[in-house]
């Protein structure tokens, strides 16, 4: 099902590897999302999220400083951010970890290596569920 996504929405991409951030930004641009910013770990992302009025957060799990799972927990515990949709894009593939992310309130979980089609499908699914 094709979902009408708001292509102007503001997206924060958090990953410690600049190449992965570039790949995700390029894929998002291909999907029509051009309003994207980057952060290299949870502790740089958090102040940006608090002031930047982001509509969507795409984060890695394993990062120095603040990890993606801690960022997710912090976002869910913050009154102004708790409804922010969060997609985790990570190499972490243990069942325990996926369950932990789900319990922490993640909206979608993509394991690396991933394809453009998977990223698109998960983003659509997240906003389809939010809109319904």
């Amino acid at each position: 099902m094709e979902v009408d996504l708001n292509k102007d929405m503001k997206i924060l991409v958090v990953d410690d590897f600049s190449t992965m951030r570039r790949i995700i930004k390029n894929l998002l641009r291909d999907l029509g999302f051009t309003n994207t910013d980057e952060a290299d770990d949870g502790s740089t992302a958090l102040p940006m999220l608090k002031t930047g009025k982001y509509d969507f957060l795409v984060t890695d799990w394993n990062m120095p400083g603040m990890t993606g799972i801690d960022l997710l927990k912090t976002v869910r515990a913050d009154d102004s951010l708790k409804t922010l949709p969060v997609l985790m894009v990570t190499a972490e593939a243990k069942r325990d970890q996926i369950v932990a992310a789900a319990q922490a309130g993640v909206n979608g979980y993509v394991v690396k290596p991933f394809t453009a089609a998977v990223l698109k499908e998960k983003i659509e699914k997240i906003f389809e569920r939010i809109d319904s």
Partner: protein
Amino acid sequence: MTNSKEMGGSFDEFENSLKVQSSKLKSLVDDGDVAGALEVISELNNARDTRLYLEVGLLTRSLHESIRNFQIDTSGSTTEELSKIEDASDRLAYVVEMTNKAANKTLDLVEETMPFAAQMKNEAQSLKQEWDRLRRKEMTPGEFRKLTTRIDTFLEALTKDSGKVHENLSAILLTQDFQDLTGQVINRVTSLVKDVEENLVNLVRMAGSVDAITGTVHDLAEVENGIEGEGPQMNAAQREDVVSGQDDVDDLLSSLGF
């Protein structure tokens, strides 16, 4: 390794003499020969001390050997590139740098090429519509003249842009040579790690013998960690606790009500 065998042999000897001496001790005590029993105890103590010194000596020698072995691979690299890199972490840092450079160069080239492809596609699409109008004879002579100029420009641009696309694709191709170079470095580091592991196992075996002689028992409590990032999983297909791909993740999440 000769050391451990040699040591294992001597350790068995020590154990045998321990058995003989203890039964001798028992019979002396049973017979009420206290002085004789004490002498056996002191003999046992001496044997134990001698063994202990020997073990520590062997352990020290082996430790030195192992430390020396650790160096062999790190300094004996053949290519000029590797000789600049003195230890494994430097080598791995080099791999990170090489892969980072290659990934960025590839991304640069892709980002540079994509607009060309998009432009070619857009212009071709738009020309196709005009062309169809011409074939349906819906075009005025004025429009036709404009179309021929556009086709001219398009073909010229196409020749130039497709040349650029080809050039960038060739550059992307060449950028993949990092795999060869980093592969060599990683293979060297892997063999180094194997050597280090072998030497460590020998050290642990020796330390075990010393523990056995001195009767040391280590209290190695398991440290409980919270859930931590582990990075990419190897052999995911053979592991129960790891998902083997996005389909598995989706199944797991949907079983959780996602």
